[in-house]
Every structure is written in C-alpha cells, then in structure tokens.
C-alpha cells in the first residue's frame, strides 16, 4: 500500500493505493487525511477503474501527414523525431529582436498546452526547458 492523492479535483483527498502482483487492485480514501477523512467522491472512488481502464492506451501511435490511419512507432523513435521537429521549428520561427532592436530571443512557433493534471515537478521541468528553448506560449487549464 502506498499513500497517494486523488488525481481529479483540487480538494486533494488522500488515497490509499493497494498493489498486488505489480498491479493496482484497490484505491480508497485515506482516513488519516485532515482534508478528506477517508472519504471520496464517485470520481475518486473510481480511481482504480481509471488507472486500469479498458480504454487506456499503452502504445505510441503515429499519424503521418495526410495519413488516413494510425501507425505503430517505437517510443524511442517517436522521441527522436519529436526532438528533431522541436529543434527545427524553433530555428525556423525564431525571433531574435523587435523591430527597434530590443531582444526577444523567442519562438512563438512551438506551443505547449497542459499541466493542471500534471505534478508540480513535471510542470517545473516543462517550464524550465521550454523557457530555455525560447518558447513562450506555455499554457494550461488554469487559463480555461
């Protein structure tokens, strides 16, 4: 059993995650939590059903430009291709300075959207990396 936090809304209910044979078998409220006192709503109570959902995808999928269907792709290859595209898009859409010569040092050609269901440590690295890369259109649900 490990202690966790519900992944749905921002109340932050405590969860206990039970594992058997390397698989999550049960998720229920953590009675120790001063926030939730062991209780969960239907979404939180469905967390096991979420992580083991029959609709969950576990393989990378790729659609080539103008393609009509998904194709298989290895994670390694996908990461490699994405890195190349990121570098190229950044290069092609780079804005070094304003018309009057002030530094911009950025790209608006690469954008990021997401984060409200991600961990803070993940968002931190995302903001850190994309900012260093000059991408400024970094946004998430908090705007929505």
């Amino acid at each position, binding site marked *: 059993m490990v202690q966790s936090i519900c992944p749905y809304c921002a109340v*932050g209910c405590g969860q206990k995650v039970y594992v058997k044979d390397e698989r999550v078998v049960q998720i229920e409220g953590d009675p120790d939590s001063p926030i939730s006192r062991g209780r969960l709503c239907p979404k939180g109570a469905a967390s096991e059903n979420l992580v083991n959902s029959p609709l969950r*995808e576990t393989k990378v999928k790729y659609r080539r430009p103008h393609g009509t269907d998904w194709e298989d792709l290895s994670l390694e290859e996908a990461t490699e291709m994405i890195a190349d595209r990121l570098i190229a898009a950044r290069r092609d859409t780079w804005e070094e300075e304003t018309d009057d010569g002030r*530094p911009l040092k950025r790209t608006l050609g690469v954008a990021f959207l997401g984060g409200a269901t991600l961990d803070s440590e993940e968002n931190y690295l995302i903001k850190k990396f994309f900012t260093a890369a000059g991408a400024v259109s970094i946004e998430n649900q908090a705007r929505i």
Partner: protein
Amino acid sequence: MAEQHPVGFQWVVEAKERGAKVIHVDPRFTRTSAMADLHVPIRAGTDIAFLGGIVNYIFENDAWFRDYVRAFTNGPVILKSDFKDTEDAGGFFSGWDPGRSAYSVDTWSYNKSSGETAAGKAEQEADVSGEQAHGAHGFSLSKGRPPDIDDSMEDDRCVLQVLKRHYARYTPEMVEEICGCPKERFLEVARAMCERSGRERTSSVCYAVGWTQHTTGVQNIRAACIVQLLLGNVGRPGGGVLALRGHANIQGSTDIPTLYNILPGYIPMPHPQAHPSLDKFVELNGPRNGAWGELRAYMVSMLKAWWGDAATEDNDFCFQYLPRIDGDHSHYATMLKMLDGGVKGLFAVGQNPTVGSANAKLQRMALGKLDWLVVRDFSETETAAFWRDSPEIDSGEVRREEIGTEVFFLPAAAHTEKDGNFTNTQRLLQWHHKAVEPPGDCRSELHWIYHLGRRVREKLTGSADERDRPILDLTWDYPVQGPQDEPDAESVLQEIGGRRADGTFVTKYEELCDDGSTACGSWIHAGIYGEGVNQSARRKAHREQNWVANEWGWAWPKNIRMIYNRASADPEGRPWSERKRYVWWDAEEGKWTGLGDNPDFPPDKEPDYVPSRRARGMAAIRGDTPFVLHPDGLGWLYAPSGLVDGPLPAHYEPQESPFPNALYAQQQNPTRQIFHRPENPYNPTDGEAGAAVFPFVLTTYRLTEHHTAGGMSRTVPYLSELQPELFCEVSPQLAEERGLEHGGWATIVSARSAIEARVLVTDRVKPLRIQGRDMHLVGVPYHWGRRGLATGDSANELLPLALDNNVHISEYKVATCDIRPGRRPRGRDRLALVEDYRRRAGVKH
C-alpha cells in the same frame, strides 16, 4: 460545491449541523442547492450586480466592520482628484482611450503617490496580463502608510466614500431588475452575511472557477473580496474568498506555471521594452515594500537554479537567457495564431482543447494548420483524433487526406505510476507516491520532458549558435532510477525548494539572496525541502494534531495554512474575539503565536512597529498591516493598479445578452477581448438587429459524475454509466414554448454551431423575470465529446471566444442560443442549419 467538490462539501454539511447558514447563489438548482438553507437563482453573468448590491446594503445598513476596515484596508486612502468613476463617465472609469480600446491608469492611483506608472503603462500597452503587475510600483509611503489618508474615512475622495458612491445605485430593486432574483431573497442573503460577520462571527464565500469564466471574471472575484474586506472576513478563521478549483494540480500549475506570462512564484516574464536588464526588471516589477520588495533575491535564486554556474553577477545571472513577451501569448491567442499558420508544433499534455476550450471547431481547424502535434494522455482523446473523427469530417468540409498535421500520440503514466506533488486548492502540496511501474510505452511527464530535453541538448552539443546557449547551459542533471530511467522527482523538488551554496536546504524565502549564493526554483516554495526532508510527504494523521493540521503536507509559503492570518488579530495584536482567535501577539514572548499555524507576518514584528523612511522589503511593512504581499500592507477595497478594466468592479452585460445594461450606457466590459473573424462569429446582443434569433441564455457546467473534458471520466466504465449521455436542462415553460419533449432530443444553436442533447425538463431550471420579460435558461454540461464510453456533442462547439482581458479567460458561463426539438441535422445539413440562423440574425462573416 456539492456537485463538484463533494468531499470538500462535508465541511459545509458539518458547519450547517453546527448552525451555519448555507446560501447557494446559482442560475440552476443543483445538488448544492438541495442542501442549502437558501437557493438564490440569478441570471448567468450578473454576479457583480448581485455582489455590488451587497456592498450597497452593507453601507445602507452601516454593517461594515469599521475597526477592521480603517486599520487593515485602503478604505481611508485618498485618491487622485482626477480619478473619475463609472458613475461620472458613462460607465467608464477615467483614462479610457477609445482609440486603443484600453485604459491609461495614471488617474487610478493613490493621491500624492509618484513615479508609479512607467511599468504599469508599458505592461498595459503591451497587453500583458494584469496579474503580472504586483501593484503600486513606486508607492511613496510615509512610515509604511500611503501618503494621503483620512482616518475618519469621511473625505469625499477617500476609497470608502468612492466605493459607497460607486455602488449607490446597486439597490435591491436594481439587483432584482438585473439578476432576476426576488428582492426579498436578495435581502435575505445580504442580511445573513452581515449578521454573521464581525468580531464574533465570520462568513466565507466559496466559488468554483466558473466565476472566472466571464468577460468580467477577475472583477467578479474582486467584488467578493470587497464584500469580505468590508465585513472583516479576510485572514480570519471561517472567512475568506475560497476558490474551489477543478483539477488536482491546477493550483500547482499556476504557482509553478505552465503559463506564458509568469515564471515560478508569480515572477513576471520579462518584456523587451521595459526590461532591458535585471536591474530594470527588478525596479519595475518589484515594489520597494512588502514581500515583493525582495524580488531580486527571488529572481536571482531562480536563475541560479536554472543556469547554475553559468549564471554570474557579470552576466546578470543569465537574465538575458529569458525569452521576452510583448503581448498576449495565451491559449486563445496561440490558437488564433495557429489558425493563421504561425505555429508549427503543439504539445497537448493532459489537456483536450477540442472539448474543453471555447469554439471547438476553431480549435480543430487550428490543429489542422500545425506541422506537428504531440498529444500525451491516457487514451485517444478528441484532440488526438481530430484528424480522423470530427464534425468537419462528417460534413465533408475536410477530408483526412487534406489534413497535413503529423500527429504523435504518447501514452501517459497515471498518478499511481509516479512520484510527485499535487497542490490542492488551499495551496497545500501533498506528495503522492509511486505504486507501480507504468505499463507499455506509458511514461510520466517527468520522464518525457527530462529525456526530450536530454536528447535536444545532445543534438545541440557543440552548437556555436548563441541562441542555443540557454538550452546547453541549463542545469539538467537529475538522477534517474528504475527500469525506465525515471528521473528522481525528489531531486526536482529539492531544486524547487532551494539550496544554499554549501548544498544545504533553505527553510524559508527570507533566506534567499540576490548575490547568487542561493539557488531556488520557486521562491514561494522555499523551504519545502527544509531540514533535508520532503515536507510535502508528511502524513501525520488528523486525529493526532489539532484542526490546523500543519503537519500534513506543506503549504506555500512557509507552510502557512491561512494567508494574511495576522488579520485575525486587531491592530494591537489581540484576537478580535475569543471565539475567532487564530494568530495573536504574545507580548511577553515578543512574538506572534496562535493555534498552530505559522503567522503570515514577520514572527517578531511588534504590532506598533513603524518602519523608518529607509526601510524596504518586509521591514517596510508596519506592525498593524497584515496584507504583506501589497506594498502598503493593506487589503485593497480599491485596486490602484494591476487590473486593466478598472479599480472597482462594475456590472457589464456578457458579450452575448438578451438584455440591455440597466446600470450604464456602456453595455459590455469595454476592455474585453473579442475576435471578429469568420471562424468566431458572435450572436447579436441586445440592441443589435437579429438578437431575437438567439433569445435564450446558455450556460455550461460540470456534473459530479464526470471530470472536465472527459479524458479521465468518459473512459472510465463506472463513471460513464452514471451519466451516459449529453443532456440539456430546461424549464417546463421553455419546453412548452419550444415543444421540447422530456427524455427526447433537442438541438441547441448558436452562430458557431448546432449540437444535440437529450432533454431533461426540470423545475430546477426556471424562468426568471428580467426587466419585465421572462428569461429562459438552457443548461448544458460540457464534458462530452465523440470518444470514450459516454459520447455526445460538446457544449463548447456553441461558445465563442470572448475573453476577460486581465487574464484571457473566455466567457464559458454565458452566451445566447436558440433551442428546438429533435436531433440536429447530420453532415452538411448541420452547416446549413447554422448558416440559416446566421443569415436570419444578420451575423457578419
């Protein structure tokens, strides 16, 4: 709150059992209303009229908390003589520039303050979000107080009198006329709030973020803050304006932002004109006084965390590595730029904009203009599938082969498959532990971004290009572990929480230095790894501590559970009442003490402390002013800076409304962001020809059984069966008027699209009488889309982009529509129906 935060609602039920009065103000009667003492229906988009009515009631009945307001708010501060209120300027504040459709804010500041406007101006003209400005730059404070003050609060130009006049016409009758709720019911609310506030009692206002989803979103919240400050309900137990946010880490993703205009800890992104150097950046963004007075230390520490040894005094600590923003680069601006072909690649990570964002068709069309799209999620969302499954493909408007976007779908790890922090809606960080390895190709975002970054750095190694230096000089050496080389999340948390030069961990933000001797990724989180311990993983059971429970998780800043809690004591430091004591001054010990929370105040600052003329930072905050993030330490009834649409909330009608503005000649928020283009047509609003074609008010919302755009609920069998199909909620009267059959189908139409939904005829939605007319509401939950187990049309097909210009959030909560019986036409006929409506309404484009 019962609908969307059921477990949080347990505390409301418990309070109710102990005598609290629970009031629910909402256009619909919901599960929350069912448990409330009083449900008050109002027309969607009229919140400021309602809250302004309460402000007016407070003054009319002399119910404001005089001692609190005089000492802790800017009520006594005198404003400039050339400030003009909406009452005097036809619904505008002074400074309106019709040419720019924007305000010049010079006249809004405190009297006799000086030099404050340069930064504010540059930011505004550059259309940079108001939240960037930490307010009141260059305040000239005298002994910690604004320069011109009338403690009697009787001066005509003091904030309190301006406020009183501003809301004088927000009478109960006006509330009824605008909001449509019976005057008596409104008065019951106002009375209840006033009776339950003061020394002995407090009241709180809880809102969900639908309140922000208006063209007056920020001012909605401001209006609630004004009510709470007048009643003395801020910084005290049982008080507050409490945001009930909707995602596990939406607070965290604001604090450590994936947002375009801020850096971690709400530090603004630099601007090309205003911020040529670190010094200038600090000068213009950091007020001299208060917690923001040490901005340079926060900024330098962050730059050190990011660029390590490369960041030195000589190179401004790599300040020049930061990209600049000079306009609105937010979500909607980016999608519009994408639509015009200006964006090559998009990463959509755990977000599903083709369901969750306004004007879903526009979102899809924009995605079709990308070179490449990367989607990371649990399942193939509507966004991942936009190129093969969409209304446009149904209608033949586009064919798959015509869409050139290359799409990568990367499966994501679940919360049980990774370590990390969620920050809940009260700023509480709670660590969740990994239970199992993610299956197949599923990876955490930490894994993804770390290894993507590593690969990009490898590819750029040896580059002589200056623009690659920020990437190559980045500190990017996190230890990895396990079979998948998962980066160690705790090592990232350590960087966020801050280290000294010797590698030991800082314990609070006051320890951060501006000389490069500390590195801290997010100043507000300084100390989260204090004493070398992951403070957010603390799990002392609530039974083993008092109700403050400050040994469970860790709240920013400094593990403070209630922000501005010095306001729970009077100016002399004594509890306002025994019943409501929380933090108070212990004169014998010479420190602030209390029930167990950390004081949100320098721990040994005497209540009668008066700063010297030279004092800066926290030393410039007086001992009797609790609002330490403001340079004057005061709660702002009136916001002298930071907002683009006025220092006080004023009622404006939504972008689309069947009614005229009963208060001002100006119909809508003059600063709202609207986009006139063919993909984003607006329904005519009241006073424009064709408005009657869309006679009903549309509102969108969530249900308990689903989550946001459905990515985490429409794929979950146990949730999908509970609410399997999209439905709309209408009153019996509207059903009769339009021939809608309970359990049957209806088609809802706007100038953007037409969607179909099952019909739920219910007394819980009732017409309101507004300005002598019946107003009908059409309620539509927004969770549905075409994929998953529970499928249906998306409510966001119907909505336009119409944004609050402070924060660029769209008006999801109100628009106009028509509704008709039966299913919507299929294929091209759907387009024809919408086109017919546009023609009849005379919609441009």
